[in-house]
């Protein structure tokens, strides 16, 4: 056993393309990194940007967001709406110094089982390089990890 850092990844995927694509990866017996937990959504349009932040706050080191290719949305336009949202969201996060390299956006269709394996593997490799995302976790955990700071806080005496 070595103590190499194993990244925790969360994948938010749409039911119609990427989830089916990930299923195909399995049925095609393609091996890929097991660091990812897949959460299925009806559509990329349903993936609230808060979910990404919640994932980081709760210990994810990286997030994958994936759905149908443009023009392939089961609901016609969900992925177009999602794309706009991600365009703004990503730039805003970058402006606030949140590490956008940890969010991987992708289009994976139901036929692209091999691509899904590739997306996961390359993201896991990239996050492994970046290390755990302690910055956000620490900011999110309110008091935990800040004990030394709290010790120095003095009661206000009048």
């Amino acid at each position: 056993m070595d103590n190499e850092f194993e990244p925790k990844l969360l994948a938010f995927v749409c039911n119609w393309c990427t989830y089916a694509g990930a299923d195909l990866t399995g049925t095609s017996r393609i091996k890929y990194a097991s660091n990812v937990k897949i959460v299925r959504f009806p559509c990329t349009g349903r993936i609230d940007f808060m979910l990404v932040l919640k994932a980081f706050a709760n210990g994810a080191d990286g997030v994958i967001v994936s759905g149908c290719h443009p023009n392939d949305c089961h609901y016609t336009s969900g992925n177009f709406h999602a794309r706009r949202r991600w365009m703004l969201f990503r730039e805003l996060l970058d402006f606030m110094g949140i590490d956008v390299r940890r969010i991987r956006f992708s289009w994976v269709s139901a036929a692209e089982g091999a691509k899904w394996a590739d997306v996961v593997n390359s993201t896991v490799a990239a996050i492994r390089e970046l290390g755990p995302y302690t910055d956000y976790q620490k900011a999110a955990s309110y008091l935990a990890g800040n004990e030394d700071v709290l010790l120095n806080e003095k009661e206000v005496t009048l």
Partner: protein
Amino acid sequence: MIELQNRVKSLLADKEIDLFIGYGQGTRLPRPLLAGTAEEASGLVFDGACTGNLAVYLTRKEVAGSKKVGIAASYFALRSIVQLLAEHQLREERLRVFALAPGGTLKELAGLAEVERHLAETPVPSLQVEDDWVKEIDAMPPKERWGYWLGELSKCFKCYACRAACPMCYCTKCIVEVNRPQWVQPWAAAASNMEWQINRVMHLAGRCSDCGACGAACPLGLPVHILSHKMVEIVAQRFGTPEGGNALSTFKPDDKENFIG
């Protein structure tokens, strides 16, 4: 000033309006003055120093309700009014808009078309300070940016003055008041403060008038309006002028990005 006072008094007397939302003399800057009677209207002022965004009162039920209102609108308030009309939050026929022409003369704007024409004719007030501020932050390395915003926003104690001051924040049930699911933790802590600001700015994407009222309202002087300003820049850069003031509830099939692979 007398001109506006007299006009408001006659509108009130003729029952053309029930309430006038304008500016009164303040200690440093003009402050909001809600005039429902001729006597109250005598305190109205309106000049170049009147820059606060009074459009915020238009969507407050306890203030405007279903009244016929008149408003003294600064440049950014006019932008907010256009957006509120686009979102069907105001009735054009219940609204009398007064603005200042570049020379400082009083102008009554009848309806949306005239407001839009006035906006097109009037030069945009300078936002040089905000532009420079955004450039300064953009120039920082990501780690430093994170430190900057973490430092600023960890001071926030979640009074939501930024929300209260915003004409576009009119939801009767805001995301931070929803607890199923509890998206944003209710206590004031660094990450949840950041998440609140991210939510605020994302929900204002393409709708924000860039008036800076959020930052001006912050009792701690946190630069939350810089986040809003950055979002205005991003939207303009990515999508140009959004049609009908819509950036996120619409799309173009050929929207261009470079990060989805």
